[in-house]
């Protein structure tokens, strides 16, 4: 066993009769940011959900290892208590649940003491003014960008070992983007592994390794800049099961 925090081994996922992910393998080390890049609908979010173990995202084949333990069939809440968590591309709205309550939940589940200082610190980290938001509800009165940053604050409070970030940069303004980038930098410093889905150039600067995914298969792995350029300028688009379109279908490490 190497140093890897998370290891995905020959993983395939089918939903109904559709192959969503096929024979996916990669690993992520502590403090490493690993990005999935690819077109819409290629399986990036499905990979995120499978790592988190969400309902309907239990693989048909292959394994998910966390710190050497097989967690392939472990329920989502148990994974969370082991130190894995997820920030959604489109965070949920919670009618009648205050920001304060929402932030406290991750601490509560780990029996960590909740203090006003901790909550304020987490909100400040994501450029949210605590006094204006702590007593507001996480409902339609908050924008998607605000909910996204609050979700990230809740993750910070959990002090996780591994974080899955599904397009944290989409729908947020420039100031928020900087604060999200800072949070990811802090994850790296604290040796938290990050699985990142992004289309943003700024975010890619924080990425250590990347994979290009198309039609549920990894078609290229390696340096994030190289992968991004390939996706932008050389990728010919995905056709169902027609991998002849891709000149580099053999994985390049």
């Amino acid at each position, binding site marked *: 066993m190497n140093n890897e925090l998370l290891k995905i081994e020959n993983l395939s996922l089918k939903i109904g009769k559709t192959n969503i992910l096929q024979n996916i393998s990669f690993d992520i080390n502590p403090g490493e940011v690993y990005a999935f890049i690819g077109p819409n609908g290629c399986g990036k979010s499905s990979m995120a959900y499978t790592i*988190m173990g*969400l*309902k309907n995202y239990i693989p048909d084949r292959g394994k998910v290892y966390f710190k050497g333990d097989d967690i392939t069939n472990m*329920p*989502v*809440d148990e*994974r*969370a*208590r082991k130190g894995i*968590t*997820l920030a*959604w591309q*489109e*965070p*949920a*709205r*919670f*009618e*009648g*649940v205050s920001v304060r*309550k929402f932030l406290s*939940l*991750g601490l509560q*589940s*780990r029996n960590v003491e909740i203090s006003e200082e901790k909550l304020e610190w987490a909100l400040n980290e994501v450029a949210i003014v605590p006094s204006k938001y702590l007593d507001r*509800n996480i*409902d339609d009165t908050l924008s998607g960008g605000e909910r996204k940053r609050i*979700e990230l604050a*809740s993750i910070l409070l*959990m002090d996780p070992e591994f974080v899955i970030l599904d397009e944290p940069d989409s729908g947020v303004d420039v100031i928020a983007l900087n604060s999200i980038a800072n949070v990811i930098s802090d994850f790296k410093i604290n040796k938290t592994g990050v699985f990142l889905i992004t289309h943003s150039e700024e975010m890619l600067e924080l990425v250590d390794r990347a994979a290009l995914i198309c039609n549920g298969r990894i078609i290229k792995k390696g340096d994030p800049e190289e992968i991004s350029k390939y996706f932008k300028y050389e990728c010919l688009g995905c056709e169902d099961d027609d991998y002849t379109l891709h000149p580099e279908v053999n994985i390049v490490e």
Partner: protein
Amino acid sequence: MMVDAYKEAGGKDVFSDSDVAHIVLERDKVLGQHMVEGLEVDAKRVAEGNVAVKVRVREGYKIEKPVHMCFGVLPKEGKQKIDMDIEIEDNASVEIMSDCVFPNAIKVVHEMLADIYIGKGSSYIYRENHFHGEDGGVTVNAKSDIKLEEDSNLKTVFSLLKGRAGNFNVDYDSEVKANATIEMVSKIKGYVDDKINIREGARLIGEGARGFLESKIAIQDEAVAEVYNELTASANEAKGHVDCTEIIKDNASARAIPIVNVKHSGAKVTHEAAIGSVDSTQLQTLMARGLNEEEATDVIVEGLLNG
């Protein structure tokens, strides 16, 4: 004893505050009452288990602090019938909080029949909070006939804050005149074999009248809920909305019947009803924070009912 039971059930201690008007009734006994200027309350026993309560807010008076009423039956069995007559005279305002406490009910019936009149330009907020026991042995029949004069407004919020719903029946009917607004909200959670039946109706008969009927129900086990909301708009610029959300779990069953009648081309009424299990994204977001499914469901349901 009533106040103690109310406090034990989670109610706030307001009955010793001399600025707060209140009345406390246990079955057909008036245990205490305290009034403030502009507010008149007359409570008397009319028959066994039956009390008539007349509340009047005099013209032009704005009662600053909410008036508290505490009703209840403490023994396991009993009946309490309250005939309530509420009159808010013109240009007056008041908020009444009724706390209904049935902590030990095995075979208890609580009936509240209310006639509510809200004068021109007046405002009335009515919050009825129920604190029940865990045996489900209470039958609640709450029936109100409400009339709102021009430019008045009424908000009613009916909440079950503790314990099982039992057999819970709400039947509110209202008539809303020009530029008056009515908002009726019910928030109830039921489990085991609780039965919840809510009927709310509003007739928007005056120009510019507004009506908003909202029900939030969460049921599980073998509980059953039916929500019947009827909103009729028959005047120009009358507008209304019916909103029913029911979350179900286990073998519970729910039914929502929104009826909207529009009888004027310048009126508009909309409705939405959603019945289903707990939202999967909400649930999994909370589970990804380490909460188990039951804990996550509780947070979502409490949020829905408290929102």
